[in-house]
């Protein structure tokens, strides 16, 4: 049954569209609270060292300088999970780690003063990969993590998933017709690299009240998460427009510490905006991921057992790594329907820029790492991967242990349809010629196809609250703590409210993302905006209407349930002449407020398949992405261009291109990053766009009034494995390493053809 909606599913202009195209949208570096100072961070040139002496007198005397702080005089705040990261420490643990902070009248003065700080370091041996970090006698990064292993997993309560142990793997492997095993990595530690570097402005109103402005993705994290790290000051978190995040700017604990410490010292507002260098070298990277294990399978594609060790490199410290391991362990179970699991994990510290929250959140890292093993076992069984994924993605009634350790039963839907429609649009049947067989060969150019899938049950994660205020002038105001970092979510929430309230879209507004004026919302993570935040807003709108109808029913001589509203006019159903405008109904000096909430629900996973066609040139080693088709089911599209934009995002933010060219390169001798600028860090340009099509089904979901779920977060995740498969088929040889740069292609091709080439 198709439902006619006035706004939902239609293309409507983004509420902030005009502000964006006229330059009026304010991002963090566009705002300047009165008498604001500029903060800068002195950063370590050593990957691991003790600071034995630090002299700041010259810097303090420099023109315009208002404060210089070192490890000896910063507040005792701590971040990390569990707490192990100070504002500044006497030990630095990666090239780019913070050493001292300066606040000055101008940015130039603050930058100049950094050069006047004299630091003596005692260099320590460092570890740049997991093997070195785990070797006996390896240098230790943190006293609380002996052997450089993080073993405390408090992310989602006492039973947070740190392994998947289900059924009996020994029996599972006995029952298998094919088994593949090996050790494979997804260790590009790529950078999500939003165009805008992160930044925070902090100002203390008094000893206990702190205001922070930032361009974050989830407005309230800078209040509720940071409070516990700073001795519970009353933090007012305000979010500006956010210039891209992809998870990375959900929050910025270090940046917030630096600005807040300098603000405390100076009694002024202090802005700390990272340069692109700092964004590359001292913010967040993807987790390094390596899977060492095996997968067993029957001839018909039934997965009989998954066993192995997932090794995760989180860099110099851990903040959300445990959360990502928990979600990754959950997501693997969605993708592989299997009764027997023994998946263990190790979380390892190394002397490089830390990893943080990034779209794909654990699942992308784990699935990309085991993709070569899965491909190998599918190839042994001669199974069409589309058929395999159709059989194995979680279906209604399917069970999985989610991140907090509980067993959930899927009450979502069967995505077979979505996979089939995607395959048809892509032309899979014509292009798939079997494992390691190219689709076409023309001279040195070989074409191949691949598919990857991914899904997440976090679409209903965590809690949301919202208020909606109906005003006498026929407008409505949504109070919800929701930022705008590119998903168009603020506009989509206005559409949902306008649809319930039957108000013109331009009459529905939203309060700014400011925790002082809004109730709690967890934020825009895990594609939860549509279902979780949407539910709270819809419930608030319904609650407000109910109150309004109850108020006017007696005067309209009707029961509240007999009333309806259209364009701020209330009428008796079937008797449009028995009506009253909102102005009179509400009263010019009053308003009507409704409340709505949402409580977490992990039973409705989303899904995305990504089909890719690549062309490999065996003469140059170039891998060209020719065509991408994604397919999903969104239940009900809220805003077509916003959803399409999220799906196109598969190419951005350390997604599909981590299989082609994206990687962070760290020199294994010095610990310095070798490509920390936008010329050497490769990215896709307008000239290199593949054909791209999104196939979006709309089968109603058991979520909320509009039967929709979100799918944006996961678009980066299926790409890397899909590309690996497509290139393998093009080359006629399993490819196992990310990214598939020309040197890797030529090396493998040369070995295959028996060509010796000294330069590769």
């Amino acid at each position: 049954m198709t439902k006619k909606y006035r706004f939902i599913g239609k293309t409507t202009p983004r509420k902030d569209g005009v502000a964006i195209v006229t330059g009026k949208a304010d991002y963090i570096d566009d705002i300047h609270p009165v008498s604001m100072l500029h903060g800068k961070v002195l950063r370590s040139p050593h990957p691991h060292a003790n600071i034995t002496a630090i002299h700041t007198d010259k810097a303090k005397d420099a023109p315009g300088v208002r404060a210089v702080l070192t490890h000896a005089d910063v507040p005792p705040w701590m971040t990390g999970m569990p707490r192990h990261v100070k504002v500044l420490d006497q030990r630095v643990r990666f090239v780019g780690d913070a050493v001292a902070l300066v606040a000055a009248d101008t940015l130039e003065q603050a930058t100049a003063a950094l050069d006047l700080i004299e630091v003596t370091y005692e260099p320590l041996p460092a570890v740049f990969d997991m093997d070195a970090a785990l070797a006996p006698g390896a240098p230790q990064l943190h006293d609380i993590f002996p052997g450089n292993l993080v073993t405390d997993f408090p992310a989602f309560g006492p039973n947070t998933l740190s392994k998947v142990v289900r059924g009996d793997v020994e029996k599972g492997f006995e029952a298998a017709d094919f088994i593949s095993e090996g050790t494979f990595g997804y260790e590009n530690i790529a950078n999500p690299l939003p165009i805008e570097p992160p930044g925070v402005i902090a100002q203390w109103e008094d000893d206990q009240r702190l205001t922070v402005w930032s361009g974050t993705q989830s407005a309230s994290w800078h209040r509720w998460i940071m409070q516990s790290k700073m001795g519970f000051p009353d933090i007012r978190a305000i979010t500006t427009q956010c210039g891209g995040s992809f998870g990375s700017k959900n929050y910025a604990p270090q940046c917030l510490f630096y600005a807040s410490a300098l603000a405390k010292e100076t009694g002024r507002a202090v802005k700390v905006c990272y340069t692109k260098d700092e964004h590359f070298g001292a913010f967040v990277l993807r987790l390094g991921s390596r899977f060492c294990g095996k997968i067993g399978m029957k001839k018909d594609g039934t997965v009989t057992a998954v066993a192995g060790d997932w090794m995760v490199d989180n860099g110099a410290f851990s903040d959300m790594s445990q959360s990502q391991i928990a979600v990754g362990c959950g997501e693997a179970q969605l993708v592989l329907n299997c009764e027997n699991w023994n998946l263990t994990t190790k979380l390892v510290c190394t002397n490089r820029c830390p990893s943080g929250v990034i779209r794909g959140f654990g699942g992308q890292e784990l699935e990309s790492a085991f993709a070569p093993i899965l491909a190998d076992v599918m190839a042994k069984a001669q199974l069409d991967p589309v058929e395999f994924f159709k059989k194995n993605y979680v279906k209604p009634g399917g069970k999985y242990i989610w991140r907090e350790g509980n067993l959930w039963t899927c009450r979502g839907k069967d995505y077979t349809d979505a996979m089939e429609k995607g395959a048809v649009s892509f032309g899979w049947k014509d292009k798939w010629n079997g494992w390691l067989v190219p689709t076409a060969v023309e001279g040195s150019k070989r074409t191949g196809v691949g598919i990857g899938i991914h899904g997440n049950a976090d679409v209903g994660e965590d809690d949301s609250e919202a208020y909606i205020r109906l005003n006498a002038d026929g407008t409505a105001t949504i109070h919800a703590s929701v930022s705008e970092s590119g998903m168009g979510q603020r506009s989509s929430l206005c559409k949902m409210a306008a649809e319930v309230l039957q108000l013109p879209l331009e009459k529905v507004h939203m309060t700014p993302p400011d925790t002082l004026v809004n109730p709690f919302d967890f934020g825009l993570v895990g594609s939860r905006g549509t279902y979780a935040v949407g539910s709270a807003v819809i419930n608030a709108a319904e609650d407000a209407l109910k109150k309004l109808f109850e108020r006017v029913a007696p005067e309209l001589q009707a029961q509240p349930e007999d009333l309806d509203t259209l364009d701020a006019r209330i009428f008796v159903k079937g008797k449009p002449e028995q009506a009253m405008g909102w102005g009179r109904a509400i009263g010019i000096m009053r308003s009507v407020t409704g409340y709505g909430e949402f409580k977490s629900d992990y039973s409705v996973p989303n899904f995305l398949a990504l089909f890719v066609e690549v062309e490999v040139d065996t003469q140059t080693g170039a891998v060209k992405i020719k065509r991408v088709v994604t397919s999903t089911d969104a239940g009900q599209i809220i805003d077509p261009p916003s959803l399409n934009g999220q799906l196109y995002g598969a190419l951005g933010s350390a997604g599909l291109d981590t299989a082609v060219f994206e990687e962070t390169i760290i020199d294994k001798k010095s610990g310095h990053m070798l490509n920390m600028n936008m010329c050497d860090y490769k990215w896709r340009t307008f000239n290199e766009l593949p054909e791209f099509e999104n196939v979006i089904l709309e089968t109603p979901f058991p979520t909320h009034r509009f039967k929709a779920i979100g799918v944006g977060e996961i678009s980066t995740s299926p790409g890397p494995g899909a590309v690996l498969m497509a290139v393998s088929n093009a080359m006629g040889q399993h490819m196992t390493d990310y990214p598939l740069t020309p040197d890797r292609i030529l090396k493998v091709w040369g070995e295959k053809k028996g060509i010796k080439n000294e330069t590769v």
Partner: protein
Amino acid sequence: MKKTNGKERTAVTLVVNGVTHELNVGDQPYQVSPCHTLAQTLRETLGVTGTKVGCDQGACGSCTVIMDGRPILSCMTLTIQCHGSEITTIEGLADPASGKLHPIQQSFVDHSAFQCGFCTPGIIMASKSLLDRHPSADKQAVKEALSGHYCRCISHYQVVDAVMDVAEKGEGDR
């Protein structure tokens, strides 16, 4: 214009979005230092913050403005080099009297040709400059003109559609 410290100072004249600014060269907050980039002067000194700085390394295109008819990277241009130039920023595109959006701006709104929107001002300025010079540019020309613009959200497809919509209508050189 006020001179500081009795020292000889030169002044820089910029016409920004039709308004003439005469700026003293010096190191006070309201002055232009010889090391200031045009992006800095626009954003910090003149408070015209619609021009965005994504990398400050000449590699992302977000700081693009139109100077004397050509798109330039304002983060790679020293302000003192711009003396006598006419500069248009994103704030200067809409009709000043009516506030009506330029057709390219309107097309970006109609196509939702942005996600986070941070790359948008630079991309719109480059598109405007292209269509000023080649009102009916084809798709390939648009892609090439925008090839130095980084968009991490991947709004490329919608951007190309938005620009082509205007190019085909021949409204770009309004």
